[in-house]
């Protein structure tokens, strides 16, 4: 038991240090800007819990981040450097919206699962492309996922502008989804999506799948030493492709739950770079599903907290963007997560 605690402390030492260092740099900046740096930091970190409304927004922010981080974890554990979270998220969101808008005549009991399935499948498809190219032809997945992100963003921009656009509103915004397939609110917290329940459950399921099943052991073996995995009879190519299908599926689910539970429509700029922030959460959590839930909650807290901080103390909310950049830059220092082959 004591050893487990020591192991845990050892495991979280580096990410905690990176977060602490970044927050410290942030505090210096804040102190330079405002006379009330402590107030600013209190709001940054804790204003999320000041009201039920704030708390609801906090949960809404945490949901897509957690899901994307979980997807990233599956792909990284299988040795795929998937930076395609953003594209997978958008693919899921647009697919669910298109189904919801075009088939709005269907009864909710049919339409809801259909929209969810479409979102997940769209994300999974986007994970499948780089996975197959990597496994069959060793095409670098960083490049493919990066490029696919932009392609998907352009494609959704086309759909949102030309195909499912709400003609009454300004900008690339789709028509509203029929209310019958909206996700119910989190019990007791009006305005909060119940998607967070899904995210929490899935982080536990992911942990069990990765660390408590033979399938998970095989997936991780494929990710840590591919030739070893093949030697002991693991169908490694299949595991890698499955992992990327899951990664894409999680991203797609994140987008789906966003449009069904939070936005109720597709907006072209709905994501403040959830893909990259989700990747950050996963890496900060040392690609551990439960840890990723914690880092995603932390990130949701400071992203929303930044807005409260700006209102109360005049510190720009983009401080968080700046700090995220710093954190990502520092995050992998001295513990290179992947040896790039070139």
């Amino acid at each position, binding site marked *: 038991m004591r050893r487990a605690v020591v192991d845990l402390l050892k495991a979280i030492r580096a990410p905690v240090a990176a977060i602490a260092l970044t927050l410290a740099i942030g505090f210096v900046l804040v102190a330079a800007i405002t006379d009330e740096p402590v107030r600013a930091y209190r709001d940054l970190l804790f204003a999320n819990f000041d009201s039920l409304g704030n708390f609801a927004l906090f949960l809404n922010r945490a949901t897509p981040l957690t899901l994307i981080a979980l997807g990233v974890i599956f792909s990284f554990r299988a040795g795929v450097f998937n930076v395609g979270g953003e594209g997978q998220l958008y693919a899921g969101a647009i697919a669910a919206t298109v189904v919801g808008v075009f088939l709005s005549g269907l009864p909710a009991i049919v339409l809801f699962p259909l929209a969810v399935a479409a979102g997940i499948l769209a994300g999974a498809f986007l994970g499948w492309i780089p996975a197959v190219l990597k496994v069959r032809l060793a*095409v670098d997945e960083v*490049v493919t996922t990066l*490029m696919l992100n*932009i392609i998907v963003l352009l494609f959704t921009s086309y759909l949102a502008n030309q195909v499912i656009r709400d003609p009454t509103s300004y900008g690339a915004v789709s028509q509203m989804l029929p209310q019958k397939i909206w996700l119910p609110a989190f019990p007791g917290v009006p305005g909060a999506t119940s998607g967070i329940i899904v995210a929490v459950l899935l982080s536990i399921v992911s942990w069990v799948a990765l660390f408590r099943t033979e399938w998970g052991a095989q997936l991780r073996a494929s990710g840590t030493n591919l030739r070893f995995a093949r030697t002991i009879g693991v169908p490694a190519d299949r595991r890698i492709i499955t992992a990327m299908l899951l990664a894409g599926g999680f991203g797609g689910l994140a987008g789906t739950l966003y449009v069904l539970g939070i936005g109720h429509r597709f907006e072209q700029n709905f994501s403040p770079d959830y893909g990259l922030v989700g*990747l950050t959460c996963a890496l900060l959590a040392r690609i551990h599903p439960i840890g990723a839930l914690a880092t995603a909650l932390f990130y949701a807290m400071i992203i929303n907290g930044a807005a409260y901080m700006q209102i109360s103390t005049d510190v*720009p909310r*983009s401080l968080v963007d700046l700090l995220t*950049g710093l954190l*990502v830059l520092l995050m992998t220092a001295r513990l290179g997560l*992947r040896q790039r082959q070139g």
Partner: protein
Amino acid sequence: MAYISFLASVLEQSSPIMLAALAAMITLRANILNVAVEGMMLVGAFTAIAVGNASGSAALALLCALVAAIVMSQLLALMTLRFSADFIVAGLGINLLAAGGSLFALEWFYRSPGGLRPITFPDLWHIPAGALSWLPVLGPALEGQSIIVVLSFLAVPACFVFLYKTPTGYYLRASGEDEHAARSAGIDVARMKALALAISGLLAGLAGAQISMDKLHFFLPEMTSGRGFIGLAATLFSGGLPWTTAAAAVLFGFFGALGDRLQALDIPSQFVLMLPYLAAILGLTFARWRLHIRNRPARILKPQATSEPSGSHRADLEPS
């Protein structure tokens, strides 16, 4: 003369993509997939407007843009080469830092989160009208282009000469191609990679300055709008070869100009704008596929396997 104005807009669109592509190419030759070109461009674009606004000097603005982008590149070099951070993650961190930092500066210092729009701004040097009238077609298209557009096309032969005609270029390529061989020849591989990043920063800074200084004279958050990635795509599509990379950059610039025209005609431009990225994926896939085919084991034409083993073999194979 619609085609001349279209050609001019192709040249103008190609310029930042060309510079970004060369920036990514130089690092790719040192075996670094530089995803931070976009961020370094943004820093260049922002610094150019901020310094031009404060000093009123276009030359100083340009110089500072280059210095700022190089500083970013060396920050990346420090984290990756000295503190062994992952190149991709740290590179994405540079992009976030550039976006977040410029936005932060806008909100805090300029109190204008929407962008920085100086009322007056010093102009870059442009090719005067009529100066190239002796040159058919290309001449009129080049007239009125900024000094940076000219530099971006001169950068192609410069990069070629650097990589293939100077010792440092050789050592840089050796460091990228076979680190072990380079090291055993006494080459400081880390220094070569830092140098590649610095050159990359210089070119990206130039690209950023072109975007904000040439015609617009203002800075907007996200104003590089993925052109760093288009440049990366051009380089990957061309396998890091200077002339091919330049050609791909012009092609992608053409797509960009075409996209603008289509948009003006109310035709969805998104599919045209996708082409560079699709080309990068397809180009890379095709290159890997060719390698895959080439490395397939040769067929055994004459199946020796059907021949009988020699007598001595057979005797030894009998169970004792």
